[in-house]
């Protein structure tokens, strides 16, 4: 079967699963009376837990349970079949499609379903006429091939893990529905053939992130975290949309193939002088990526997102959604290639994020928080790679990071499950023998992330450090920051390991520590194997191990413009740097071991000595408080106050003023009426009276005076005749 032509099915399977769950799930898995999804870590006493365990049917293990939960085994089995099954189908189809893509000489395959947005012609910035059009089309090329394999493969493993982890929670169908919906949107994102459709997936994964972070919606902190994630994402999306519209205006199209063709054709010169319109476009789209991939300044939502269930943290906030930003920037490689200043901004932001997040992770006590900041830090690495022009290296680190970070999160979920919901590392310890599988898989993942040679993380991280050092767009400062961050990474990871698994047990009394069920441990094992093996796909050129061991770079070569080789760097420098990074990692590991295993009192004394620094780091550099002050209180509340006072003073003042004017007008009208109109009437009467007064005086009432006037008249009459 021609998998390539059916790539539209790949996102459709999880969509179907999500639709089934969200429309019919309630019938399938009726909830108990109280729809409270009990989050691990909320206070349920051990007694109730044990009672819940006894009442559980069909499950070998007995993790923490709500006392009032009744599990419908058949419906659960059905859901377990449908949802992970859909993702498995997608994975199978993805593998088939990628295999067939591999066979093609020209490894690009585009399938356009239909024209989605057909717009009117408009004038571009340079005056040419263009038609805005976005298809519902899928593009399979090496880059999207890597992404769909990661999304569906790791997604499937996490679905399987969730069947075990969420077994005792309400809202089972809802969880899987949202999870499948997320996979659908993520696949739309990576398979899209134009920026508009990518944005559909972009927004969709943001939506699912909100839904899943706020999964335990009865908990206020979860709801707040979900809102925060969505709002911060939206701030970034504003930049993305502006960048996309600018692209429309300047280039006339948003289709990847067309955009790349235009940019590589030489129509636009490389903007080495300063920031031009292409740089503006690049930086706007990068701003969107900072929101999605949790870079400075929009990373603040990721640590709070740990309110969601652990599988969600693993899938969305480690392996897939947060890598959407990296994917999008890599997709726009042609654009960033032409704008070295924008690329520098990307690299600097990435480096800053990396070291900032690592510094915060040093002092956090919640196991998931440490891993969240670790994610932010590693994403910073990926952006450093993108910034210095080593696009395939960023994707490679994305690839390896997906494995070991998902493993770390799932493992931490297993640990939390084991100690009955406790997430604070200060109340763990000496769990090594009690939960061996979890311990050994997490051990592998920690080695990988610390950058020990042979494990996946070493290859990708080392390549990034080398590119930061040697690339024309890189600098020594970037390399130094990256190296320091690597040391910090090793330190805090091994601090986590020591506090959680080694040393003395600080677990609360009465906790029954038990290993997780097979549904949870099997994915852990698979991911651990991946953390070891996948790194060997991208060995350094220096090691000269043959083309197969550099398959990753060659696979992705057609997609990216060639990285300018830094020929003058000698191989000895590279060996030296490699050794240095390994040494730094080993130093970090040994210091952590010394602090937390041998002499546990040292961290406490250090904390007391450097109390101010510790406080700042513990409070995440007060960034949340600053944002609160500036934006939340400043803009919205302050703006609300300003607008409120505007409304009171200006708008209401205007209305009151209109009322005052009306009253004034009425006063004038009264005056006019009294003095002018009535005055005219009264004046007429007065005038007549005044004129008639002399005449009145003549009317004396006496007849003789009337007769006198007759005589006077005669006199006048005769006088007239005499005078004539």
């Amino acid at each position, binding site marked *: 079967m021609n998998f390539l032509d059916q790539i539209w099915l790949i996102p459709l399977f999880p969509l179907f699963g999500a639709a089934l769950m969200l429309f019919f799930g309630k019938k399938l898995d009726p909830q108990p009376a109280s729809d409270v999804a009990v989050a691990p870590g909320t206070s349920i006493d051990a007694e109730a837990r044990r009672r819940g365990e006894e009442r559980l049917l069909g499950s070998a293990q007995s993790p923490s349970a709500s006392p009032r939960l009744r599990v419908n085994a058949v419906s659960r089995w059905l859901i377990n079949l449908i949802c992970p099954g859909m993702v498995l189908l997608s994975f199978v189809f993805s593998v088939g499609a990628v295999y067939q893509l591999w066979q093609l000489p020209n490894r690009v395959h585009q399938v356009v379903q239909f024209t989605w947005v057909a717009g009117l012609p408009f004038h571009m910035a340079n005056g040419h006429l263009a038609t805005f059009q976005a298809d519902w089309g899928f593009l399979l090329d090496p880059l999207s091939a890597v992404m769909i394999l990661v999304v569906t493969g790791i997604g499937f493993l996490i679905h399987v893990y969730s069947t075990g982890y969420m077994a005792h929670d309400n809202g089972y169908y809802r969880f899987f529905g949202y999870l499948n919906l997320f996979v659908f949107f993520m696949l739309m994102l990576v398979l899209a053939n134009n920026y508009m459709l990518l944005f559909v997936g972009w927004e969709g994964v943001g939506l699912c992130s909100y839904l899943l972070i706020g999964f335990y919606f009865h908990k206020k902190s979860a709801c707040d975290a979900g809102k925060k994630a969505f709002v911060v994402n939206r701030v970034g999306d504003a930049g993305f949309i502006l960048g996309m519209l600018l692209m429309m205006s300047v280039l006339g199209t948003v289709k990847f193939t067309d955009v790349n063709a235009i940019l590589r054709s030489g129509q636009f010169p490389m903007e080495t002088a300063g920031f031009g319109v292409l740089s503006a476009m690049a930086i706007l789209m990068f701003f969107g990526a900072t929101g999605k991939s949790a870079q400075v300044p929009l990373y603040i939502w990721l640590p709070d997102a740990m309110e969601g269930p652990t599988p969600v943290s693993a899938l969305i906030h480690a392996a897939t959604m947060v890598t959407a930003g990296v994917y999008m920037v890599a997709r726009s490689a042609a654009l960033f290639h032409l704008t070295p200043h924008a690329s520098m901004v990307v690299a600097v932001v990435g480096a800053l994020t990396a070291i900032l997040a690592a510094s915060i992770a040093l002092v956090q006590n919640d196991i998931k928080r440490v891993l969240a900041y670790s994610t932010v830090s590693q994403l910073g690495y990926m952006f450093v790679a993108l910034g210095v022009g080593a696009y395939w290296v960023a994707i490679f680190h994305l690839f390896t990071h997906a494995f070991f970070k998902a493993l770390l999160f799932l493992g931490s979920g297993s640990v939390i499950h084991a100690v009955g919901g406790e997430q604070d590392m200060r109340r763990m310890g000496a769990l090594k023998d009690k939960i061996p599988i979890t311990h050994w898989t997490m051990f592998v993942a920690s080695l990988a992330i610390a950058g020990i040679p042979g494990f996946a993380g070493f290859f990708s991280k080392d390549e990034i450090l080398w590119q930061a050092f040697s690339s024309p767009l890189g600098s020594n400062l970037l390399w130094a920051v990256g190296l320091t961050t690597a040391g910090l990474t090793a330190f805090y990871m091994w601090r986590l390991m020591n506090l959680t698994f080694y040393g003395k047990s600080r677990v609360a009394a009465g906790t029954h520590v038990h290993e997780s069920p097979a549904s949870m441990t099997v994915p852990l094992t698979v991911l651990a194997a991946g953390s070891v093996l996948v790194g060997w796909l991208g060995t350094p050129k220096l090691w000269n191990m043959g083309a197969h061991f550099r398959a990753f770079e060659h696979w992705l070569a057609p997609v990216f413009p060639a990285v300018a080789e830094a020929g003058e760097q000698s191989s000895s420098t590279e060996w030296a740097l490699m050794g240095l990074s390994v040494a730094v990692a080993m130093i970090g590991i040994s210091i952590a071991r010394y602090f937390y295993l041998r002499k546990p009192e040292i961290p406490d004394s250090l904390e007391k000595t450097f109390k101010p620094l510790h406080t700042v780091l513990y409070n995440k550099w007060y960034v949340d408080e600053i944002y609160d002050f500036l934006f939340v209180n400043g803009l919205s509340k302050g703006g609300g106050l300003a607008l409120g006072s505007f409304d009171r003073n200006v708008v209401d003042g205007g209305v009151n003023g209109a009322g005052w004017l009306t009253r004034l007008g009425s006063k004038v009208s009264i005056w006019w009426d009294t003095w002018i109109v009535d005055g005219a009437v009264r004046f007429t009467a007065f005038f007549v009276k005044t004129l008639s007064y002399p005449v009145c005086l003549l009317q004396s009432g006496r007849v003789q005076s009337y007769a006198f006037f007759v005589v006077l008249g005669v*006199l006048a009459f005769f006088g007239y005749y005499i005078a004539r």
Partner: protein
Amino acid sequence: MDTILFYAFAVLVLGGGILTITRRNAVHSAIALICSLLGVAGLYLLQQAEFLFAVQIILYVGGIMLLFLFVIMLVNLDREANERQFGKGWMVALAAVAVVGAEIGYFLYRGRDAFHIAEGGAVPGAAALGNTEMLADSLFSEYLLPFEIASILLLVAVIGSVVMAKKRI
């Protein structure tokens, strides 16, 4: 002879008139008026208006003046005799009348020669018919209508005076 009679009657008339308007006592004024009216009657006779002479005596003196005297008696004007009898503006009235008199005098002076023709032709045919007959002829043929109207006027006057004088209508 005519001249002397004329002047005698003229003095009677004018004197009576002046006395009428100046006497304090109303009865004296009435008597003076009677004298004046008698003088006027004499003047009528001088001008060969015998009928008018008779009518004047009978009607005016015998009728109207008697009426006046009765009324004077009715209103009992004794008290009046002690009070001022002329109105306040008598000087102004006198002046106005004097001016009118001057104007009339002027007219008369200017027209004193206008009546010669009349003077010449004395009374043609006066001896043929008597004055009363001529008057009757004219009154009952040419001036019949005014005559009838005058009689109605008298009727109205009678009724009016009766109504006026009644105590209650």
